[in-house]
């Protein structure tokens, strides 16, 4: 009977205490074993254990402005020391939000870094968005690909392969190498420390490639920025960091374009985009998903 009780307590993860006065039901032959067990359990009872109820509550991270007031209203800002994911398709406002966050961070006097997987940052857009360029470190990945060794054997194999297959494998190698560059550069920057905002721009990577990033890598990134003032912002097509991200925003455009071929094109002007941001997940504020809309304007509108 006692063994059943002990196993239950072990399953509950609590030390089981025998009442020394009452004494357990033990057979005469087991008295020595029972005494050893009692003394062991008494010793374990002396170990100071903190009940879960008394554990310190992890302090809420400091929230800083994302640069777009509607997003700040939705999320309360971007959390420091956490990973924030911003995902959405092309023309959904991901880069606009990224540049707004960079502009806000550099205006706060922080140094920022962009690890650009597809070398897509437009310097003029960044300058117009208000990013202080001398505080921004830009890492342009995707170049400096390793040379393939031209061994005769490899050459023969390559000749036999289908040309399309060869192209596909080259593309896969390139994207793998690019992804490796991005992750290593991010690792180095996180290790270096001192940056207020680090952006991983994976927006142009195909989702199947972006999903190759192991979850352990995201865990590592999350641990690296924990208790630091750094914000890690990942721009993606689809969410890939799983539970490692503290904040997940889904962006989308509200463009409802009519077929306007009848209207002369020179009378049209792209003045801006209407965006919709939906808070998919927030580990900081457990509220149901909700969304906001915000408008962007092009640089030439003024």
């Amino acid at each position, binding site marked *: 009977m006692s063994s059943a009780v002990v196993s239950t307590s072990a399953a509950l993860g609590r030390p089981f205490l025998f009442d020394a006065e009452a004494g357990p039901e033990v057979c005469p032959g087991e008295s020595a074993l029972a005494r050893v067990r009692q003394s062991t359990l008494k010793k374990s009872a002396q170990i100071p254990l903190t009940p879960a109820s008394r554990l310190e509550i992890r302090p809420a991270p400091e929230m800083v*402005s994302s640069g*777009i*007031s509607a997003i700040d209203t939705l999320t309360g800002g971007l959390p420091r020391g956490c990973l924030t994911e911003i995902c959405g*398709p*092309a*023309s*959904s*406002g991901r*880069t*606009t939000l990224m*540049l*707004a966050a960079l502009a806000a961070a550099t*205006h*706060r*006097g*922080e140094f920022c870094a962009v690890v650009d997987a*597809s*070398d*897509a*940052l*437009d310097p*003029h*857009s960044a300058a117009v*968005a*208000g990013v202080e*360029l*001398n*505080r921004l*470190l*830009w*890492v*342009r*990945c995707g*170049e*400096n690909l390793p040379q393939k060794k031209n061994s005769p054997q490899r050459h023969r194999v390559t000749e036999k392969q289908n040309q399309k297959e060869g192209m596909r494998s080259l593309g896969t190698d390139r994207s793998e190498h690019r992804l490796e*560059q991005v992750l*290593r*550069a991010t690792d*180095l*920057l996180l290790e*270096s*420390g*001192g*940056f207020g905002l680090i952006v991983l721009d994976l927006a*142009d990577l195909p989702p199947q490639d972006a999903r190759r990033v192991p979850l352990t890598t995201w865990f590592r990134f999350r641990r690296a920025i924990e208790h630091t*003032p750094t914000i890690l912002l990942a721009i993606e097509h689809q969410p890939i960091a799983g539970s490692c991200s503290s904040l997940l925003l889904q962006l989308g*455009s509200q*463009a409802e*374009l009519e*077929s306007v071929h009848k209207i002369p*094109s*020179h009378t*049209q*002007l*792209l003045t*801006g*985009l209407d965006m919709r941001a939906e808070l998919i997940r927030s580990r900081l504020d457990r509220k149901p998903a909700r969304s906001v809309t915000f408008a*962007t*304007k*092009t640089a030439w509108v003024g």
Partner: protein
Amino acid sequence: MPFACIYVSNFPVAAAVRAEPELQARPVAILEGKPPLEKIIAVNEKAGGFGITPGMTKAQGELCAELALRLRSPLQENSAHAALLDCAQSFSPCVEDSAPETVFLDLAGMESLLGSLPEISRAISNRAAALGLRAHVAIASNPDAALLAARGFCGAGLCGAGTPARVGVTIIPASKEAEQLGNLPVEVLFADRLEGDQKKEADRLLETLDRWGIRNLRSLAALPEVSLSERLGQEGLRLQQLARGAASRALVPVEVPLVFEEAVELEHPITLLEPLAFLLNRLLEQICARLGSRALATQELRLTLELETYSSSSSSSSKSNFVRTLRLPLPLLDAKVFLKLLQLDLNAHPPGAPIVKIHLAAEPARPRSAQGGLFLPPSPEPEKLELTLARVAGMVGEHKVGALELLDTHHPQGFRMRRFVAEVARRVPQKQNPDVAQAASAITALRRFRPPLRATVTLENGQPMRVACNKKEVRGEVLWKAGPWRFSGDWWEHEAWSRDEWDIALQNGETIALYRLVHDLLGGHWFVEGTYD
């Protein structure tokens, strides 16, 4: 008016030991001369214990298996001498460069700054040790007395090889010079490396004094001046003044040049970067110690490797120089950081031939004075950042990492990459009016395709109706368009450009995406330059 003399006994050996600290525990002899007539010119005390003395031939020295024989290296001696001057300069601005192994300092007024004379002398000795030199420091009221004390009490100055050198400090109080120096042998007066006629004259004087029974300075000082002058002339009187510690002269100060160079010549060429890093570490530590003693840092390191290149046609070897310059955005003084940066640089740009000589020079700079503000946001540490940037540059390419700088042009690619420095003028973050912040709307950003996507465009009435390009997302019927907006520039140069820009909307799966379509008017091609995102 106290003067200090820093004296390094067995200077050629000390220079060799400074370059190779592992020799400290071994008997060392320095060779000079052309093969096969090399002779030992200096030995350390351990070698003296084995019976090795200056003047022996190389073959005789090689009979001692434990003996480390090294060729005399003027490069190493110059570096050691420069280190000695740096050591002296770090304590007094008035320094006399008397000999490679001897430096004088004027310590007048230094007591109020640096402490008592014993403290100063110990500090000088410790600083010299930090620079890799075991020096004896003597302080006296005149330079010559300090020199005699440094030579005499050091031990090695008396009889050269074999005598154990007592490295430390000697302080002779004023007016007690004759008393303190009295026990020193007269040979200490002739310890300079004299050559030719001067050496013969010194030998003649020594022989004369020996015949008179004058063995130490006290005996020489006690001789009657007139009689000594009659017999030995003015030189005799000068020697007596020295023996009494009463000779007085002014220092001839030199301006120590701010040249920080270290070099090492290799007996066997090295081909791998790992042993090279080992040697570079040693040189960097020496340079950093020297810079540190002068309260300086460096912003530029210049590494010159002398390579041994073989030409297959003539089957002979020739020497060539391989130079790498490491420019830093901020003055730094950390040998480990420098070593890592040099390693990363050499990994990216290997020398390509065996290395026979390493020369490292540092351009001195004032160390940066930075104090982090309590209310200022943190910034990356310059040392860490430099290493990180070097590592990232080694991975993605040298010109693919840095800060952006816009050029004064309307060209769409009008920017360049420059070095990222985390030391821009700090300013207190401005608090923005929240109402203004709310009112300001975000600027629509462009994501560029690098290189731009070549497109095939179907036109109708001169307007794009359908776009097709390699990227499968960027193709289809144009749903909306605005333009054309014409841009041109640099028509006065070879790189003239002229283009029409269109803003178009294409169906992208379930959503609509906006792109910038460009018609190159000079080349006639169409490109999709980027997407508004």
